[in-house]
Structures are given as structure tokens and as C-alpha cells.
């Protein structure tokens, strides 16, 4: 009895365990957008210190990612724009007046010291995270340096310069037929939506405040275009949304999306500006409501990439992302914050969780119900799991492609493969054709040997000949 119990627990533990890779570069905290700017990369360092001092760090596979290269970033961004980011600095800014206007760099998105490095780090983390998931070396990959979802192909926007999410998804698309992007930032994830607006391989779902709010896009009616029609989903919400009302629409909608779209990888943008007390966001979520979204995707056992994003009350951002990292590794952490380098920032209560405010929730249950109906209607129009009958499922494809011998079989026989591949190839002793080694008459030798060993060989030979 007790043995069965133990076995059962073990099974559940096995199921709930996830290999979590975490990407962080300490330099990220040393960039400063400028005086009075609400975006503070320092919040990522605060998160990191909480992870260390909570002892969550030891459960993570920690990487310091290599910065993304120019070429990698131009997989999405235009070369002209990236060249501008690379060359313009606060010192020579006068030379770039024209470009600054064109690329929307200046006000919301200032040109600060080390801007290009900053972009490289944030994009490098998401790229490395995507590669890790592609290689199936981790179940969850986290990059709090990323999540800059407003950046456009040739334009900075909303504190974002390079769109690490788009770069990461493009990388995931090399191995995954369909990728789902979910955005729980208080702002609409317009950069990612725009990038994948016309494709059916990426579905973008964004829950955001809509109406007189940055960036102004994200209407319920925007559903994608061309082939990507109905592959963009927007859930516009109003001020003061609480944990309960948020989850009352998040869960049913996302369950349906997962059923219908059947993604093989998910990217979750965990913008923390949807929390209560954010300097820009008018929502009223707590860590629990926000983290519920992480739990939701964790429960599906498919590769999950978690990235950061907005969040303009640094102490709450650090709290939120620490909590969500703990959820990813499934570790219970106490409410009392451990002492850390930035402990004073968490006063006056020095606790992990934040309380909701009693702000009015402008999202009535009627409104949410109607919204859900509309969203589901859009979802119904989606072609069920596109192209699924035509192609092998993504999982099979990966297994197939990872098997190097199959890869060789499929290779063009007229092209000599690289020595690094062929060096490892030895001829199977059971091969019955005249190969390059013809002349030493290994075939007969071999047959004689097998015959001496006994039966079964003839049958095998016949089977091969049949083929």
C-alpha cells in the first residue's frame, strides 16, 4: 500500500518536474534609459538577486547568453535600422536627426549609452532560449531580459528597440510547425502581432488594456490578414481587472486556443505592468493572478519560453518574475523576502506578494462574457490545426531530423558529405552490396561466417532482397 503511494508520488513528481534554463547577463542592469524614464533594466538584476537569495538559482540551468550578432538581428529587422542602432550614440546623435525621426528613436525610446549592447543582450537571451528548446534540452527557457514586444521591423516603439520575441519565434519555427505567442503585458503586443500578422504558423494572443492607451492597437476586430487571418487574437480589457476576472477569461480562451491551434511550442510574454500598483498599467492583478498564466502553460507539457517585458514599478517586477521562476521550477517559496543586495527597495513590508487595491473593476462580468463570446467566435473561424493532415506532426519531424543516419539516407547521393559527418560512418558488416571495399571479397567471407554461426541469415537476406 505504502509502496504504491510512494510510486504514485514519484510519478506526479516526475510529471511536475521541468528542466528550466535561465538566461541572464549581469551587464543588463548597468544600462540606463535616462533621467525620469520609467523603464529600468535594473529590475532584471533585482529579480536575479531574489532568485539567488531564495535559493531558486540552484534549480535552474543558468546561462550567460552570447550577445546576438548583427546578422542574427537582421533576420527580422531591416539592415538600415540595425546599422543605425549600431552606429548612433549619444555622442554623434546630431548626425542622425533624420534617422532618429524615421526610426522613432528619441522620446519614448531614447538613444542611451550602450543601447546596441543592450539590444544584443536581450535578443541573445531569447535566441539562446529558443535554440535550447529546439534541441529539447530544456522544457522551459526563461529570459527576463527579453520580452520587448513593441519593436517593429524598422522602428523602435514603447521602450523597445529590437524585438527579441520575434527573433526567438523565428528560431523556434525552424523546428516547430506552429508556435503560439501569448502576451499578458498590460500593453498590446503590437510588434509581435505585426511581424506575424499574415502567417498561419504563429498565432498571437494578447490580453491588454484597450482604449486610450498605448500603443492604440489591439482591437477585438483585428484578427490577422491574408493567410494569417484569424491567427491573431486580441482580448481588449478595461481598467482595474482583478485576478478573478482576468482568469475567468484567460483560461477558457486559452484552453480553446490550445485545442484548436495545437501549438508545439509556446512563448509567454510576462510583462509585469499588468500588476496592481504599476506606474503605467491600470490593471489590478496580484502575483497570484499573473502567475496563474504561467501555471496554465506549465501544465501543458510542451516547450515553453518565458520572457519579460513591461513593468515599471521595479520592486513589483522583481517580485513577479521571481515568483514565476519559482512556479516554473515548482518550488514553494516563503512570502517573507530573503535579505539581498537590494533589500531596501522592497520596503516597507518586505514581502513577496502584493495586495490588490480596491480600485473599481471596469470589466463587468457581462462585458467579459460578451468579450469571450466574440473572441471564441473569431477562434471558431480558424482552420482547425492547419495543414495537419498534409505533414507529419512536428514531434515526428524532430525525431526524424535528429536521427543523423536518417539524415544521411535522405541526403543527395551525388553530393559528397562533409568529412566530419562521414568520418563517423562505418559500413555495417551486414551490408550485402559491393561497396567501395570491393575486391577483398568481404561479402563471401561474411556469408561463410554467418553460415557457420547458424540459421536465420537466409531469412534476413531474403527480406533485404525483397526490399
Amino acid at each position, binding site marked *: 500500500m505504502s509502496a504504491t503511494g510512494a510510486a504514485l508520488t514519484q510519478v506526479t513528481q516526475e510529471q511536475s518536474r521541468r528542466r528550466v534554463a535561465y538566461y541572464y547577463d549581469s551587464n543588463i542592469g548597468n544600462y540606463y534609459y535616462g533621467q525620469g524614464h520609467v523603464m529600468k533594466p535594473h529590475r532584471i538584476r533585482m529579480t536575479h538577486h531574489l532568485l539567488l537569495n531564495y535559493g531558486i538559482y540552484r534549480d535552474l540551468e543558468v*546561462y550567460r547568453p552570447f550577445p546576438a550578432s548583427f546578422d542574427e538581428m537582421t533576420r527580422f529587422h531591416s539592415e538600415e535600422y540595425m546599422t543605425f542602432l549600431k552606429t548612433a550614440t549619444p555622442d554623434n546623435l546630431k548626425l542622425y536627426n533624420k534617422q532618429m525621426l524615421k526610426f522613432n528613436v528619441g522620446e519614448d525610446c531614447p538613444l542611451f549609452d550602450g543601447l546596441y549592447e543592450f539590444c544584443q543582450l536581450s535578443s541573445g537571451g531569447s535566441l539562446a532560449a529558443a535554440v535550447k528548446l529546439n534541441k529539447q534540452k530544456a522544457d522551459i527557457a526563461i529570459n527576463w531580459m527579453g520580452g520587448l514586444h513593441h519593436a517593429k521591423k524598422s522602428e523602435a516603439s514603447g521602450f523597445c528597440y529590437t524585438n527579441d520575441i520575434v527573433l526567438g519565434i523565428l528560431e523556434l519555427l525552424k523546428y516547430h510547425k506552429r508556435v503560439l505567442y501569448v502576451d499578458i503585458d498590460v500593453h498590446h503586443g503590437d510588434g509581435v502581432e505585426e511581424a506575424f500578422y499574415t502567417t498561419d504558423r504563429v498565432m498571437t494572443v494578447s490580453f491588454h488594456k484597450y482604449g486610450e492607451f498605448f500603443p492604440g492597437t489591439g482591437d477585438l476586430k483585428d484578427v490577422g490578414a491574408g493567410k494569417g487571418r484569424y491567427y491573431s487574437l486580441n482580448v481588449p480589457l478595461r481598467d482595474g481587472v482583478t485576478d478573478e476576472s482576468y482568469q475567468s477569461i484567460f483560461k477558457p480562451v486559452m484552453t480553446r486556443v490550445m485545442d484548436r491551434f495545437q501549438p508545439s511550442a509556446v512563448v509567454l510574454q510576462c510583462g509585469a505592468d499588468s500588476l496592481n500598483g504599476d506606474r503605467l498599467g491600470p490593471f489590478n492583478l496580484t502575483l497570484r493572478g499573473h502567475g496563474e498564466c504561467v501555471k496554465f502553460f506549465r501544465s501543458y507539457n510542451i516547450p515553453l519560453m518565458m520572457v519579460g517585458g513591461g513593468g515599471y514599478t521595479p520592486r513589483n517586477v522583481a517580485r513577479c518574475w521571481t515568483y514565476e521562476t519559482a512556479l516554473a521550477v515548482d518550488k514553494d517559496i516563503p512570502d517573507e523576502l530573503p535579505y539581498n543586495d537590494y533589500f531596501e527597495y522592497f520596503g516597507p513590508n518586505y514581502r513577496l506578494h502584493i495586495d490588490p487595491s480596491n480600485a473599481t473593476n471596469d470589466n463587468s462580468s457581462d462585458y467579459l462574457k460578451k468579450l469571450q463570446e466574440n473572441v471564441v467566435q473569431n477562434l471558431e473561424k480558424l482552420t482547425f490545426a492547419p495543414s495537419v493532415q498534409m505533414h507529419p506532426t512536428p514531434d515526428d519531424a524532430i525525431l526524424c531530423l535528429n536521427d543523423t543516419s536518417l539524415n544521411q539516407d535522405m541526403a543527395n547521393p551525388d553530393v559528397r558529405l562533409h568529412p566530419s559527418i562521414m568520418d563517423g560512418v562505418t559500413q555495417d558488416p551486414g551490408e550485402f552490396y559491393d561497396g567501395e571495399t570491393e575486391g577483398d571479397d568481404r561479402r563471401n567471407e561474411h556469408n561463410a561466417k554467418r553460415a557457420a554461426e547458424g540459421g536465420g541469415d537466409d531469412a534476413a537476406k531474403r527480406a533485404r532482397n525483397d526490399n
Partner: protein
Amino acid sequence: MDPRDSDLPDHPEDPYPPADQQVPPPADEDAEDFVEDEHEEDDEATLDEEEAMLEDDDDELDDLEAEADMDIEELRKKYGYGAPAPSEDEPGISSVADEAEEEEEEELEVPFNNEVIMQQQHQFTSKIAIESAANNYFGVAENNEAEEEDVDYEPPEKKEFQIRVDPLLYQAAVPESIEGVTPSAEAAEHPAGTLLWAPREDLPDESLNRFVHEWKARRHGVETDETKIDSRDDEDALYALLSSAYSTDAAAAHFPFEKANEFKRTCDGESKPFTTEEMAAFETGFKDNYKNFRVIREHFVPSRTHGELINYYYHWKMSSRFNELFRQRQMRKDFMTEVMDQMESTKRRRVEPSSTTTSSSSTVVERGHSPDGAPSTVIHSENYDDEVEYEDPLAGAGDEPPVDVWAAPPPPQIEQPTESA
């Protein structure tokens, strides 16, 4: 869309975006004027920009053509004239007024804790739903005294709030199907990065705790106290353990440990602790330039990189040295608070309850077209403007967490921010 404000059917949502925050769309005639205004003193740059505008004329013609074919509803949507929302007017307004008063009082108590002000302002603006935020991340959070004069200023054409479709200009290139993974594709993959730690199942937590604790204590020159062992991690110690194939003994031989995640890009070589002179120079620079680290670095602490200064700043801000500086400022500010109290009480008498025009200096009301001129709202926003004028730079552009320096326990004096993050 806030129901309290968007319910006025005859009141299109045309914001007066903060003049110098609005980045106009390039192919925009109005924007041209607007740019000229902003860079009046720099004629050459302006010419360049004009040329840039002219180059984009083709697009504009196309756009206009496209617009001619649109139906009126689409056009309205394109230019941000949303459909009117259902009305739930009255209760909303009165509660806003009440809360605004409450906030006003709070604000007077801690007038210089700028973070608080920013927060309140944020709540406040979101409550009365000023119709401007859509074009700018900050919304109204950053006030501009300059724009107060621009009552007649026509806002530049509103940015299109639509996802743009053009595979070359806006969309990512997505291959139709999964690419065959060839050796060249593998090579083009982003490298995994430097592994700093990987968890291992057979390594018990206790031994890990002891290992980390021992080396942390040794680094700080403290005796190892067996009773205080906790589960806090030290990335350098764990990195050493990983490098020594999880053998605690082998790792111990490498003490002092290599920094696992050092500032490689934002500092030159190893980040050494600040010397007393550097600290003093930083503080002098900070007093005059506030958080303009660029200037501070150039003129006060040239021995440090920009990144080091920022790192130091975040430690220093919570140290007793900063508190001291802050207190000196605070004393000066107490006097200013009194002056402001007086000014405000006179203003309260002056403002007519039903008129919004008296408050033409108030950006908030101006932009918000507050429906019935909610009087307390007007006063509130004016107070705010006053505060901005009197604001002492040290009180902060308020972009830091509102740590209540008075309520918080005295923070330990951090003089050596050598952390490796």
C-alpha cells in the same frame, strides 16, 4: 476605453499630445511644421528633415487614394474616432472628484516624495481618463509646461493605430514549413552561451547549502556559523562547483572563486570598489546633474565607466550616504512646502467651481476636456503643475520605487558595491 469619458458622443477623442513627446509619423505634413517648431534653433537639421519628408510623398498619395475608397466607419476608426461607449456617467465623476480630493491631501503630506506623486498622478490620470495616452507610453505622466501656451496648436494627424501589412516593410519572413536542418543551419544557430550552473539530482540540498555558506562566509571574512546555514545561493561558488565536476573539495581548492557573471561590457576589467574620492566626486556630480550619468562621468568621475556609475548608483541610493544628502535637501524643502500650502489655499479660493477655462494652464484638464469641469480635479491638476515647477531635482524625477526612507529600517551602509550581480 474608460466608460466615464468616452461616453460623450459629440466629443471626438482628439488628444493634445505633449508637444515634445509626440513623434510624428514621417509622411505627415503637420508633422513637418511641428518638427520645425521643435528644432527652431537648428536650421540645417530642419532642412534635412524636410527633405526626408518630401521623399515620403509617394506613400502619402497612396494613402490618400486608399482612404478615398474607405467607407466612413473605417476612416473614423483609422483616425481614432472610436464608436461611443454606453454611458455610466454620474457615479464615476463624483467618485473621481472625491478621490482626487483625498489624493490631494495625501500629496500635501509628502509633497516631495516624487515617486508617490508620480503614482498618484498616474492613478489620477487613469481615473479621469485623459484622452491622450494612446500615442505615448508616458501618457500624461510627464507634464510639459511648454505646451501650456499651445492652446491653439492643432495636433498632428493622429498616428494610425492599425497593424500595417506589407511583407517587405513590416512582416517577418516566415518560411512555409519547417526547414530541413542541414549542417549549415546548425552552424547558424545562436550559441548556447556560457553555462554557469546546472542542477544535479544526486547532490543533496544540505551539502550544497553547507558548501555555499562556507565560502560565502570566507569571502566576507566571517566565521562559519553552522546554525545560520540557509539555502541562499552564491553564483560564484556554484560556478566553481560546476567547473570542478561537482566535487566540493576540488572546488574549494579554487578559492577565491572566479566571478561567474562579471560585468564584461559595462566595466573595464574587474569592477573595483569606489574610493572615497570617487564617492565624493559622484555625489557632487549627482547634486548638480541628478541622474545624468553621462555628464557625471565626463566631468566628475572620469575614472569609471558609465555602467559602473549606474551600478554604484543603485547601491548608493539605498545607503545612509544618500539618506544624509536627502535629508539636507528635505530641510530646504519643508520651507517650500509651506509656501506651496499658502499658494494653494489662495488658488482654491480663486478657481470658479464650474469653469474649466480658468485652468487653461492646466495641461490635464485641457487635454481631458473634463466633461463638467469637476472643480476639485482642476485644483488638483494645478497643484501638480505647481509642484513640478518647484520640484527639486533631488526629490527625484520620481522614477525610483517609492521607498519610504523614513519608515524603512536604517539600511546598512553599503560602501563597496563590488557585487557581481
